[in-house]
């Protein structure tokens, strides 16, 4: 009989959360096997091809398949709805690198707002002060470039950004002018992109293609550029790309015994470990737990609360476009250079609760701009083809845009389960998304759209329009958002095992040697890009995990 493979820790998924776990565990002396569904790429594999990366999105997730329905009981249809990268490094490879700390009240939404009809609000079991030192650790690991203290609405920080901010482009100055004219406090967008050599990584070359692209020089921080290389250097990491885990198996005592996975050629393998960390993202982690049914857990592993796969949050992304008089220079620089946070604080007098952040959205992608010409034509009331469309294309060099990321409310009905009929290329039933927005989300979207239009107009812009991305039903009649870049909530953490899947250390209430460390532990979504909170929380969790493991194993 062949010797069975047994590791100290098995990590499933190598994105922002998994990367921290892998790095810290190997550094602490644990032998780790990491199973990643996608391929392993180097910077040489990353291309500047907009069609493959941003439009078809097939470059970094060639086999991604999901299904979607707006409401429970509705039939689902197959497609690619969420914007994911399936590769070593996960979606941290193609993220925009906008790096934020959540505000103190974003950890305490239920107690600060009270219950809201149709929403399943909750407090996080931790608060900002507990996470604060780990935000600092995350910012240092990812080399965040920013100007500490420049956002007057940022919570207090005990450490500064490790790198200075990036310079503005022409469009950033225009947005800054509009914001200043309205009395707001614009500041340099904090980005996990090197503004100078840092952490054995070179400075940014300002190619403009950050979101949806892998960085070809590793100036952008990711699990792949920051955490995987030192973990491999310890010789304690066995990294297995193209390994799709399709079942988590329990032993007779209720602990995870092993996971089984499929290789690229469809071969079924099994790997044993003392501890298991699931970091497959809010879709992938919930999907795998739902696939892993057993006598004790007929509705999915670690689901005695019934909350597994529920409370999926997506964020609200509102976008407006406008033309600047001068050239906007969106084609060089980073994701965006300037941000505005004055309108973030929750205020029910606005007709909705919670809030979000506004940032410049660099116009570096010609196909994306061309597609949005239809939005502009609709706004201007002109024909959306022919000469008006051609005239729109000719103004690309004057294009500028802003986007707002806002906090959407968790609904119990929104979530991930296993599609009963649709299967992927390996024959595995795909994750089924059920999602409809809460009316509060729609009010929030309208508000930020209006405020961004005001900022553009205050800068002197004459033509301003709303950009509505494909995959949204008509906002005026309510909305069911099919997918997102930002995924959270499907395995919420909490102190009460009857209301949450994970405890405050992201360990499953029901299974003592299973952790889930990614966006799925977020009870509520926050009103900023989530990656730095995923990274900081992973640092907090892994510290406790290592402390406990050393005590138990010694």
């Amino acid at each position: 009989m062949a010797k069975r493979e047994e590791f100290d820790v098995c990590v499933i998924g190598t994105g922002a959360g998994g990367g921290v776990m892998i790095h810290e565990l190997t550094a602490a002396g644990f032998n780790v096997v990491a199973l990643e569904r996608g391929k392993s790429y180097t910077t040489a594999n990353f291309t500047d091809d907009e069609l493959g990366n941003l439009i078809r999105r097939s470059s970094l997730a060639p086999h991604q398949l999901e299904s979607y329905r707006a409401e429970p009981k509705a039939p689902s249809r197959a497609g690619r709805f969420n914007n994911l990268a399936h590769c070593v490094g996960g979606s941290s490879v193609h993220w925009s690198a906008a790096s934020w700390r959540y505000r103190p009240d974003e950890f305490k939404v239920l107690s600060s707002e009270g219950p809201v009809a149709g929403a399943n609000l909750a407090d996080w079991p931790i608060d900002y002060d507990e996470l604060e030192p780990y935000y600092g650790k995350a910012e240092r690991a990812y080399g965040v470039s920013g100007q500490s203290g420049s956002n007057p609405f940022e919570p207090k920080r005990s450490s500064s950004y490790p790198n200075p901010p990036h310079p503005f482009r022409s469009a950033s100055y225009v947005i800054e002018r509009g914001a200043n004219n309205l009395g707001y406090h614009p500041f340099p967008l904090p980005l996990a992109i090197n503004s100078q050599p840092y952490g054995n990584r070179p400075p940014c070359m300002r190619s403009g293609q950050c979101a949806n692209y892998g960085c070809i020089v590793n100036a952008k921080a990711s699990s792949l550029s920051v955490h995987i290389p030192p973990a491999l250097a310890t010789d304690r990491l066995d990294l297995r790309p193209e390994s799709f885990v399709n079942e988590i198996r329990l032993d007779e005592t209720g602990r995870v015994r092993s996971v089984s996975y499929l290789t690229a050629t469809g071969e079924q393998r099994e790997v044993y470990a003392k501890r298991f960390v699931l970091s497959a993202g809010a879709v992938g982690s919930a999907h795998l737990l739902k696939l892993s049914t057993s006598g004790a857990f007929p509705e999915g592993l670690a689901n005695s609360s019934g909350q597994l796969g529920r409370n999926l949050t997506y964020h609200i992304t509102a976008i407006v476009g406008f033309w600047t008089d001068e050239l906007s220079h969106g084609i060089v620089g980073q994701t965006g250079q300037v941000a505005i946070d004055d309108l973030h604080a929750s205020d029910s007098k606005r007709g909705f609760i919670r809030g979000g952040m506004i940032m410049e959205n660099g116009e570096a992608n010609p196909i994306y701009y061309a597609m949005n010409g239809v939005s502009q034509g609709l706004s201007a009331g002109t024909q959306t083809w022919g000469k008006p469309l051609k005239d729109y294309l000719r103004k690309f060099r004057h294009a500028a845009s802003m986007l707002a990321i806002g906090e959407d409310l968790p609904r119990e009905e929104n979530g991930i389960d296993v599609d009963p009929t649709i299967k992927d290329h390996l024959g595995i039933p795909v994750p089924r998304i059920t999602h409809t927005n809460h009316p509060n989300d729609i009010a929030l979207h309208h508000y930020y759209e209006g405020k961004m239009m005001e900022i553009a107009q205050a800068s002197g812009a004459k033509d301003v329009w709303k950009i509505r991305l494909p995959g949204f039903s008509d906002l005026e009649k309510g909305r069911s958002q099919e997918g997102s870049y930002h995924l959270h909530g499907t395995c919420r953490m909490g102190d009460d095992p009857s209301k949450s899947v994970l405890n405050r250390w992201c360990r499953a209430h029901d299974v003592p040697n299973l952790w889930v460390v990614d966006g799925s532990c977020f009870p509520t979504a926050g009103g900023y890009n989530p990656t730095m909170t995923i990274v900081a929380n992973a640092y907090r969790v892994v510290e406790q995990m290592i402390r406990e493991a050393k005590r138990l194993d010694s």
Partner: protein
Amino acid sequence: MTDSLFGRGKQCRSMSRREFLERTIQGSALLWVGEGIARPRAARAASQSQKLAALSIPEWKTVEAIAARILPTDQDPGAREAGCINFIDKALANEDAMILPLYQMSLAALEGHCQAVFKNSFAELSEERQEKVLVQVENGTVSGWPQGPIRPEAFFATVRFHTLVGFVANPSYGGNQDFVGWKVLGFPGPRHHMGGGTPEQMVGKQKIKTVWGDEID
């Protein structure tokens, strides 16, 4: 809000048209997003050839004529000069093969309409007449279109989307020939392999080199 009956009616019509357009855009985006799964990425190799890969000769001519109305040639090159038709043909033979039936059925319906009304093929009509027909296709009011799931609105939105992509996608996909699409936009080509950008270029104080060897502000 306008209070004249005429004004209100006008506003209603434009709203419904807007809503309708948004729906059809989504329809085509869904088709677009649904494709490309586990299909070979052969388009790049095939795109260098001008030989027909998915469309018949009459279909090619019709789609080329539609694309030329969506992005017409004026003082600047349009869809014809960019070779958008070649991009579309190669995409339909590869990554977008799933929507080839949408094209084939719609083109047959369009040909039927043009023969019934004008006794001529779409590509042979005057540009003015082509535009009138396309407005009807876009609005879904074109006569003689068969009942069923393939709607003229979705076809129009899909061709418009494909034409735009063919105009400004990387030339290696078969469109944007001689970078004419990028030249119309003023896009210098991706910066990744051009040495990136400088803080001076971000504010217009230094020229930007294009991938075809010019310099722009």
